[in-house]
């Protein structure tokens, strides 16, 4: 089926079209595949609204327009903590095209940037709606057309509190066996408000509750890391695909969580 493409000037107009059933076209790396295959929605909307590409940093708050590309993240020195994440998304061409907003909707096993945003406790600003909603909610609802994402905001993590690891069979460009990310703020040397997020360990990015429980209130040391790793796969239900079986993913989840946490411990 051929899709009709509507180009509008503002996010507001685009949000109204999305509310009426149109698919939003951002960087093209997800939607255009469906267009090429003839499986895209009948109506597609895109916008030339420049706000979509804004990167705003105010104090410790970072706001990324949904249309900011991985390459733009990599070109911004103030976002250095996200460079190890953006660098591992696709190849150079995909990073020039793929957007932060689109990554929230990337199907398994893609969406590694969203995993980092989930760990960071980001909030998602929806076009035409007041306020921002937790990224956890958006990711849970993402298959149910939750509206149009305008921007993503989050607090810049303190040095040494944010970690990310992506495991691929092919380097430097390969899809995830799994990816894992953590935000471990400390108060008096103890972890307070631990957030662990997994990619490719379920239908979409999701929290690692068992690892968070093992880390919360503890010091980040070998004993804590061992306990978190031992229970890492609890509650996770990964898929079997061409990259790995569900058994393999569960089996190695703890190993890679441990490696990431040890790297964070070393600082």
């Amino acid at each position, binding site marked *: 089926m051929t899709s009709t*493409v509507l180009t509008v000037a503002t996010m507001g107009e685009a949000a109204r079209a999305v509310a009426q059933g149109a698919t939003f076209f951002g960087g*093209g*790396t997800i939607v*255009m595949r469906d267009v*090429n295959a003839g499986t895209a929605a009948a109506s597609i909307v*895109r916008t030339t609204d420049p706000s979509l590409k804004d990167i705003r940093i105010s104090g410790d708050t970072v706001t990324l327009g949904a249309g900011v590309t991985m*390459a733009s993240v990599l070109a911004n020195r103030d976002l250095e903590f996200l460079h190890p994440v953006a660098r591992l998304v696709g190849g150079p061409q995909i990073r020039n095209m793929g957007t932060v907003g689109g990554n929230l909707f990337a199907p398994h096993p893609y969406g590694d940037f969203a995993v980092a945003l989930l760990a960071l406790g980001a909030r998602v600003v929806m076009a035409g709606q007041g306020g921002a909603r937790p990224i956890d909610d958006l990711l849970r609802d993402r298959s149910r057309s939750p509206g149009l994402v305008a921007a993503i905001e989050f607090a810049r993590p303190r040095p040494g509190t944010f970690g990310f690891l992506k495991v691929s069979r092919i380097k430097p460009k390969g899809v995830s066996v799994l990816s894992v990310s953590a935000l471990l703020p400390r108060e008096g040397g103890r972890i307070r408000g631990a957030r662990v997020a997994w990619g490719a360990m379920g239908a979409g990015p999701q929290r690692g509750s068992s690892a968070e429980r093992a880390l919360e209130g503890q010091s980040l040391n070998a004993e804590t890391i061992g306990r978190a790793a031992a229970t890492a796969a609890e509650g996770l239900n990964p898929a079997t695909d061409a990259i790995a079986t569900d058994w393999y993913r569960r089996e190695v989840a703890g190993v890679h969580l441990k490696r990431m946490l040890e790297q964070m411990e070393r600082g």
Partner: protein
Amino acid sequence: MMAKTPVNFTLNGNDRAAFAEDGQNLLEFLRRGVGDMSPKYGCGQGTCGACTVLVDGETHLSCLVLAETVDGKEVRTASGLSSPALDPLQTAFMEHFAAQCGYCTPGMLVSARALLDRNPRPSREEVIEAISGNLCRCTGYEPIIQAILAVAEGRARA
């Protein structure tokens, strides 16, 4: 009737105008609508890199670009490299046997040219990174890496 959108852009430095069909991708637009056959159709889903072109100086997968979005932009393809003489990269690819079936070569050349324009003296790791979005099923990549490094290090004939 299917809508057509006028697209005015520059292709390899020359002003061009053509109509894009609704939902048409840039690869098909360039090949069928404009007649530039150098970008190749490989996978149609952004995996192989055979369709790589430059849009405003950045490498893009033309199969995933909506044709109408290049209106007002500058597009460069592998066919623009050899005007009038061969690009040093093309000579180096020949001298280093960096092509076998040749299907990936236009995309490889575009990715390599984008790298050298941005970073004339890349390291081996930077070369590998720059072509990581381009699949080659024949060469095992090593001759391609050597060809690009030869140009970067001034060992290739210009």
